[in-house]
């Protein structure tokens, strides 16, 4: 719809814009390309000078040994269960809480909401110890539920959804009531369909952040039954003394991040929109 009023820009300006954009995208994509290149290089080639982007003798050795260093298949399953299980729970808790804050009148609502929001200002790391105590007392150490527990409610999510619910016209809600919808039915049939962009935005943020989460799962899990991918990845990243095995590390990083990378490529538009809309509506 902007086409009709678009100002014709001089061509040199277009060239400049594109040059800058291309440079920036090169800078962004380079680490990724480098990771893939190193992942396919044999050990001796990684540090041989001059550095080459294309491996002379590309091999899958790094991938096969990386895969054998840690039980990645089990870790994959754990990560998927934790990330999507958590998302399912969050979507329910978040939309119900958001509805309460947006539409139900009860005493102390605003104060409560404010207190809820202060959570956003507390870094997750500082709550690790109390969370550990809680999970430990509930007997949930070394379980996937234990890993998910502290994140089952999300202040960020409630905030996002509340803002989205606020702009839904009262008349829609009234119409649902008149047609005989209960509160839960109203949420499911009227509110949720209206705020899909926010839901998608929140889902994407939740999935990426929990896919990448490291310290908390490292602390509460002990066995292969509950450990996620990121913990497996660090087996390669420790280089307190001496050099890391870069080939293995890059291969493992690729193994761990591939699903997110692919998802990003397929849902690129949604990804970008999600961050924009979360910014605008938030």
């Amino acid at each position, binding site marked *: 719809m902007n086409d009709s009023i678009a100002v014709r820009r001089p061509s040199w300006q277009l060239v400049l814009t594109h040059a800058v954009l291309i440079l920036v995208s090169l800078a962004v994509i380079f680490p990724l390309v480098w990771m893939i290149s190193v992942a396919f290089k044999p050990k001796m080639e990684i540090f041989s000078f001059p550095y080459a982007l294309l491996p002379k003798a590309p091999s899958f050795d790094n991938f096969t040994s990386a895969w054998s260093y840690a039980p990645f298949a089990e870790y994959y399953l754990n990560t998927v*269960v934790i990330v999507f299980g958590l998302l399912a729970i969050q979507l329910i808790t978040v939309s119900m809480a958001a509805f309460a804050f947006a539409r139900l009148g009860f005493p102390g609502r605003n104060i409560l909401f404010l207190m809820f929001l202060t959570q956003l200002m507390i870094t997750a790391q500082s709550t690790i110890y109390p969370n550990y105590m809680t999970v430990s007392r509930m007997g949930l150490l*070394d379980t996937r539920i234990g890993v998910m527990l502290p994140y089952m409610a999300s202040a960020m999510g409630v905030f996002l959804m509340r803002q989205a619910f606020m702009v839904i016209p009262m008349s829609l809600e009234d119409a649902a009531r008149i047609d005989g919808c209960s509160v839960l039915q109203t949420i499911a049939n009227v509110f949720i369909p209206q705020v899909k962009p926010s839901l998608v935005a929140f889902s994407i943020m939740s999935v990426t952040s929990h896919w990448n989460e490291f310290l908390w799962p490292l602390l509460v899990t*002990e066995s292969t039954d509950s450990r996620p991918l990121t913990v497996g990845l*660090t087996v390669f990243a420790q280089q307190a003394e*001496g050099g890391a095995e870069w080939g293995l590390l890059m291969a493992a990083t690729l193994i761990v991040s591939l699903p997110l990378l692919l998802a990003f490529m397929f849902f690129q538009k949604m990804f970008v929109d999600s961050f924009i809309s979360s910014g605008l509506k938030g």
Partner: protein
Amino acid sequence: MRKTRIILFLAACLLAAASLSAQGGKEAGSDQLTIRFYYPIGTAGDLANAMNALCAQYSEENPDVDVEPIYAGDYVQTMQRTLTSSKAGNPADIALLTSADVWTAVDEGIIIPLQPLIDAEGEGFLDRFFPGMLYDAKVADEFYAIPFQKSTPIFYYNKDMFREAGLDPEKAPETWEELAEYAAILTTDDRYGLEIPIDQWLPSIFILQNGGEINNVEGTETYLDSPEAIEAIEYLLGLVEKGYMPAKRLFGDSSSDFVAGKTAMMYNSTGSLAFVRDSASFDWGVGFLPAGKERIVTTGGGQFVICSGLSDEHVQAAWDFIKWMTEPAQTAKWSMASGFIAVNPAAFGLPEMVEYTDALPQAIVARDQLQYAIGEPPKTHDAREVSQAMASMFESILAGNISPEEGMKELQASCSGILAEYR
């Protein structure tokens, strides 16, 4: 229709999460004792599998005990985990901690003194270890730990570059003077002559070699503003100012630089031996660290501790496992997998170890240098904080932000402040 599908999907996710996580819990063994063992990974290699194999072997040989090795991240994260679980009343049985953290663990009261267990073994039990490795097992002169994965810095050099520069490729520099001379000869426009990773570990060696001291036995005072200490740091600053050495590199950076030919010589941990062997495309050698007024090296790495709050049965089982792990065969296996030096000298006589050291003779140099080894400085309370202060001050001095004399005075004052509460 679509909504129902979404709801079904959510329900399926929930069910999957619930059912799968239910399997996460552990079964309580009947009369089998479970020993939980937190370990870090300190070097590159297939260490998680190597550790699992060792523990599985022990559990097989001792059917009444099940040792469960739990990978806990790096040393810092392992300490974090040990502390958190102990404070939450769910202590592990054994942890593998770095020397600084053993002090903290004692101050936090989460590990037990080992002297009674050592005494119960009778005379000579500690003879199975290299004497230089026992320093880090003590806190204020009392045993709280047993060495397991130990490393020591050695001197690496590029023999091809030595030949090019007309230096004898079979002879590493012996003294500080020679080191500076060699560094001058080997420095060119596109490489450094020498790299010394700067934290507290290596600069401390220079202070000690120069006749200085880092701290007292009680670990309540440091001596970092002594003339010997200042002179040692001045020597390092001289190397940086002349352009022979970069002011700031870390261990991993240096070993990468070395194999990429960006430096001709480096100080680095024995933990890098395997990495250099596998990645260097040139002829390289190792030697003892050049000596100052004295020949002294430090050690690093991890040692076993036993957590407090365990039943006697658990303590004994943990101790038995630690004893087994420090026998020649097990120390040899761990050394070959990880590149750490075997803590038990007898390991070097085993056929598999002879084969290994024949292929990597540099490991023998590291072993022989151990006769000059003392522990990992600083040996004080709050050692991590003291180390941090030392490392950042050394960095500032070498970056030229502050003069060695002023810097070391300031450092001494801040370390003194950190340790005030323990005096």
